[in-house]
């Protein structure tokens, strides 16, 4: 952990990683979407509208996975006071919020042809909307704190919001919802995934591709934030030298 807390070392690693992550992410996303949109079968009940899944599922995964990253980074920033952790949290938040919004929008567009409605206030849809609001709250608080210089409220909000993640995950099991249960099970018997292999392959490809792109964007945002800090520090030094 401490090895990566050094900004200079982090920048060296990030500089090497950004390009391959971006290219690999674009390639996997393109492959997943191509197979999903053109080379996979329609669903036995939904027909062609099932293809919205190839955007909806990766967006949902990154919306919630990104929030976990935001909360872990905030916890590290609070406990260990690593300057990089706060930069990571600020870099993740808008990207995660964007994917959550993509998840909600694609879900609404998928809901209309299959369920017959864009939106219902069931537990899964509502908890996902709450996730978006948590992201927006974090963004507002952290930018207010950045203007005033320091503060912990945004990090605390991010950690408290983690409570929403198990609610999202298990909402379809704890309560009756319009949203169906999970199709892909990570634990237990892998064979019990109730999803045909030719449908699962493009889902997994686009999940992997979206995730790598997410990582690349976060690295780029962190590098930009560090560069901005360096510029600010240098201009302060120059200003001090000339006065």
């Amino acid at each position, binding site marked *: 952990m401490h090895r990566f807390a050094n900004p200079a070392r982090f920048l060296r690693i990030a500089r090497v990683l950004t390009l391959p992550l971006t290219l690999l992410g674009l390639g996997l996303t393109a492959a997943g979407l191509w197979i999903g949109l053109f080379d996979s079968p329609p669903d036995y009940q939904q027909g062609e509208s099932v293809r919205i899944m190839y955007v909806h599922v990766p967006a949902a995964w990154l919306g919630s996975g990104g929030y976990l990253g935001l909360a872990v980074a905030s916890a590290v920033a609070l406990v260990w*006071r690593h300057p990089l952790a706060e930069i990571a949290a600020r870099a993740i938040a808008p990207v995660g919020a964007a994917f959550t919004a993509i998840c909600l929008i694609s879900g609404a567009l998928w809901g209309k042809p299959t*369920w017959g409605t864009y939106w219902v206030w069931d537990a899964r849809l509502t908890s996902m909307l709450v996730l978006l609001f948590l992201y927006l709250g974090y963004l507002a608080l952290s930018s207010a704190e950045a203007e005033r210089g320091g503060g912990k409220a945004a990090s605390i909000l991010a950690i408290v919001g983690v409570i929403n993640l198990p609610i999202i995950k298990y909402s379809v099991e704890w309560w009756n919802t319009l949203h169906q249960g999970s199709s892909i099970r990570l634990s237990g018997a892998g064979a019990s995934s109730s999803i045909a292999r030719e449908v699962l392959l493009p889902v997994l490809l686009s999940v992997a591709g979206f995730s790598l792109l997410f990582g690349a964007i976060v690295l780029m945002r962190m590098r930009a934030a560090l560069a901005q800090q360096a510029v600010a520090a240098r201009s302060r030094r120059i200003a001090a030298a000339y006065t």
Partner: protein
Amino acid sequence: MNATKAPMKPKHQRLVLLALALAAMAGALALGISALGSSATYFYAPSDVFAKAPAPGEAIRLGGLVQKGSVQRLPDGLTLAFRVTDNARDVPVRYTGIVPDLFREGQGVITEGHFDAQGTFIATSVLAKHDENYMPPEVEGSLHKVQGKVTS
């Protein structure tokens, strides 16, 4: 034995605080979920309806499967009559209007409406629920063939 304990490092203090906060949050979540109970549920199954017996006219949502062989179009040409089942109990439903494409016998639905005095559920909206199975049409066809062989 040394009676005076060394003071905790601030870093460790913060870590303990964070762990306590997470434990408190998990506890709050568990309490909240158990207090919410079924009130956060989006719809009732037919068995719940029999257990709770909602008053006629009370607005509720009823969800379940459309019972096979129960869908009838009434003579007015607009009203559908069908039964919603959870494979334990079933409830007669009437709905006037357009149903979603996925509405069919054996399929999950969520209907919104109220019971009339005769115990028929008068739905004002019908949503189709779909399950977590995704497969191409050919696979579904062959599954039916296999099931047909077993049952016949």
